[in-house]
C-alpha cells in the first residue's frame, strides 16, 4: 500500500471522487490555482478546471448556502473553509439551512464542509479552534474527524457520498505530520468508532490529533490500555464506546477543544448515564483549558492536552 500524508490522502480522495462522480465539485477561498491555504486541493484545478474547483469570494455564508442550493438540484459540493475558525461566519447557513432541511421537508442537502481545525501550530485564538461540539448540538448534521491518512481518505469519500450535510474536521497539525499506508483506489470508511489498540484495564477515548497523543501517552504504561478513535462525533457510535467502557470499567475521554461543552464532555455524559454499573472510577476528562488558544508556544502548550496530562490522568484512574 502506498504511504501518504494525511493531506495527500485528502487530496487523493477529492481527486478520485471527482473522477468517479461528475456531480462532485469544490468551493473555497484560494483553492484553485493556489491549491488552498494548506494545499489540500493542489493540482485539482489542472485536472478538473475552474468550474469544478471554484475560487470563491470571501463569503463563508455564501459558500455554505450556495453549496446547499447546488446540492438540492443534484450536485455534490465539497466546501473548504480556509481555517475552521471562519466557519463561525457561515454558522447560520449550516445549522439552520443545511442541518434542518431534511427533517423539515424530506429534501436532502448532501454537502461536505471541510474544516482545517486544531491547535499546536502557534495559530493563536483565531487559527486554532476546534468547533465540532457546536455542530454536534445542531440536529441533522454529521460530524466526522479522521485521525489517520487512511481514515482521512475513507471518511472523506464516505462524507461526500453521504446524503446528509457532513462537517469534516481535518486536523492541521496532522496534515504533514501524520503519514501512513492508504489503500489505493476506492473505499469508504464507515462513520463508526474504531478500537485502535485493544486493552482491558482502561479505555481512553479520543478523536483527531488527540488519538496520537493518547497512543503516545499510554504506550509504555504498565497496564492494558484500550484506545478508541471516535472518528464520527455525530451521530456518535455509542455502541463501540459503551462496549469498550464496559470491558475496561475505567475511562478517560480526551478532547483538544475547550473543556466546557466539548464533544468529550458529551461522550462522558453518555457513559455516566449508560455504563454507570460497569464503572470502577470517575469518568475522567482531559481537554483544553477554557480560554482562547494562545499564540506563544509556552502558553499554547500549557493550554492544550498533552501526553503528560493524559498519562497522569491514566495513572490516577489505574490506581483508583
Amino acid at each position, binding site marked *: 500500500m502506498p504511504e501518504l500524508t494525511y493531506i495527500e490522502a485528502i487530496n487523493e480522495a477529492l481527486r478520485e471522487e471527482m473522477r468517479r462522480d461528475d456531480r462532485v*465539485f469544490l468551493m473555497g477561498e484560494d483553492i484553485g490555482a493556489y491549491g488552498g491555504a494548506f494545499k489540500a486541493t493542489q493540482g485539482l484545478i489542472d485536472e478538473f478546471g475552474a*468550474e*469544478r474547483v471554484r475560487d*470563491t*469570494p470571501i*463569503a463563508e*455564508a*455564501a459558500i*455554505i*448556502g*450556495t*453549496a*446547499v*442550493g*447546488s*446540492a*438540492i*438540484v*443534484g*450536485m455534490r459540493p465539497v466546501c473548504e473553509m480556509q481555517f475552521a475558525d471562519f466557519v463561525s461566519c457561515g454558522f*447560520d*447557513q449550516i445549522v*439552520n*439551512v443545511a442541518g*434542518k*432541511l*431534511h*427533517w*423539515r*421537508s*424530506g*429534501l*436532502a442537502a*448532501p454537502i461536505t464542509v471541510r474544516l482545517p481545525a486544531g491547535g499546536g501550530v502557534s495559530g493563536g485564538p483565531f487559527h486554532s479552534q476546534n468547533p465540532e461540539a457546536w455542530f454536534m448540538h445542531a*440536529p*441533522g448534521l*454529521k460530524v466526522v474527524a479522521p485521525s489517520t491518512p487512511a481514515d482521512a481518505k475513507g471518511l472523506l469519500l464516505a462524507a461526500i457520498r453521504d*446524503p*446528509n450535510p457532513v462537517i469534516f474536521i481535518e486536523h492541521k497539525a496532522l496534515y504533514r505530520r501524520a503519514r501512513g499506508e492508504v489503500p489505493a483506489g476506492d473505499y469508504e470508511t464507515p462513520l463508526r468508532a474504531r478500537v485502535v489498540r485493544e486493552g482491558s484495564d482502561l479505555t481512553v477515548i479520543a478523536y483527531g490529533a488527540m488519538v496520537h497523543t493518547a497512543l503516545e501517552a499510554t504506550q509504555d504504561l504498565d497496564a492494558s490500555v484500550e484506545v478508541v478513535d471516535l472518528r464520527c462525533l455525530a*451521530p456518535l457510535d455509542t455502541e463501540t464506546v459503551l462496549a469498550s467502557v464496559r470491558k475496561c470499567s475505567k475511562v478517560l475521554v480526551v478532547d483538544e477543544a475547550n473543556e466546557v461543552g466539548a464533544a468529550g464532555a458529551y461522550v462522558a455524559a453518555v457513559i455516566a448515564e449508560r455504563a454507570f454499573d460497569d464503572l470502577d472510577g470517575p469518568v475522567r476528562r482531559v481537554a483544553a483549558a477554557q480560554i482562547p488558544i494562545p499564540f506563544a508556544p509556552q502558553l499554547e502548550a500549557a493550554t492544550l492536552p498533552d501526553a503528560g496530562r493524559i498519562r497522569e490522568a491514566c495513572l490516577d484512574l489505574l490506581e483508583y
Partner: protein
Amino acid sequence: MTPPHDLEHEAPTRAVSLQAAPGSSHDHLDLDDRRRLLHLMLTTRAIEERGLLLYKQGKVPGSFYDGRGQEATAVGATYALGADDPVCPLIRDMGAHVVKGTSTAGILGQYLGRAGGVSGGREGNVHFGDWHRGVIPMVSMLPDMMVVATGMAMGFRMRGERRCALSFFGDGATSRGDWHEAMNWAAVQQLPVIFVLENNQLAYSTPLTQQFRVNPVERAAGYGMPAVTVDGNDVEAVFDATREARLRALDGGGPTLIEAVTMRMHGHGAHDDAAYVSPEVLAAWQEKDPIVRQAQRLSALGVDVDAVADEVKAEVADALAEALAMPVPDPATILDGLYCESEPQIVGRGDAPWSGHGDEAWGGADA
C-alpha cells in the same frame, strides 16, 4: 406614543421610476393567462383569509403570517417561471406556492399542523415548500434563501441547463449580510437567478428610513447587476419584469434585481394591530388592491370575473373540508428523517401555467 410613520413622505430617495401598468392588451399574456392570474391571486387570498379565520378560531397553532394585499408580486413573478425554475418564497409569497401547483388542501393542512399538510406538521405556518414542485421550504432567517437560490443557479450553470432560480425577500431583509453575499456572488459569477425585493414599506414595525438611506434597488448597479422597479400591485407588470429577467438569466446575462413596490396591508402577523401605520396611508393603498385592479382590467375585456371568484370559492371550500379531515401527525414519528438514509431526491418540476412557455425544458432527468 410616537406618532405613526407617514410612510409616503419619509421614503428614501429612489431614482428608478415605476413602470406603467399595461393597458388593455398584452404582448405576452393571452386572455386565458390574464384570467388565470386573477384566479391564482384569488386563490391565494382565499387561502390566506381562510387561514386567518382558522387562526382566529384557535385552530392554527403558533403565529399567523400572510401577504394579503401583496398577491400580485408573488403570483406575477412566479407565473413567468418555467416548470424547471425553482422558487424560494418568503412569508408574503403564498402566491408562489399556488402558482407552482401546491395543493390548497395541503396548504390549509399545513396551517392546521396536520399530517396531510405539506410539512406533515413538522413546520409551522408559511415555513414550508413543496419541493417536488420546485418550491423550496424557507428558513426563517432573512434572507438566507437568496443564497440558496444563488446556489441552485450555480448548479444550473455548471451543468449547462437552461433554467433559473428566483428568490423573494422584503425591504427589511436587505440589511442583512447574506443579502450582500448573495448579490455579489450572483453578479460576479453571472448566475441565472432573479431576486425579487418586495418593498412593502415596512419591516415589522420599522419604516424604510430606519433601514436604509438609499433604496436598495439602487445598489444593484454597484454589483454590476441590472435592476428594475415595478408596481408590485400590478400582477402583469411584475410578470413582465420577471419574464425579461428570466430571459436574461437563461441567455447567460446573469442575475437581475426586481423591486416590486407594494404595501403590507395589515400587521406583521395576526398578533400585530399595526397601530404604527396611519389609516390614511392604508386607505390610499387600499385603492391599489391588486385583485380589484386585475378584475377591473378583465371586466373591461368582457371576462366574467364573478365566475372566476365562484370557482375559487368552491375549490377552497372543498380543500378546507379535505384539510379539516386530515389526521393530526403521529408523535411516534418525530425521529424519522433526521438523516436521509437513501439516495436523495432532488428539487422537482412545478406547474408552469404561462401560455408563452414553449418546449423550453432544460432536458433534465424528468423533463
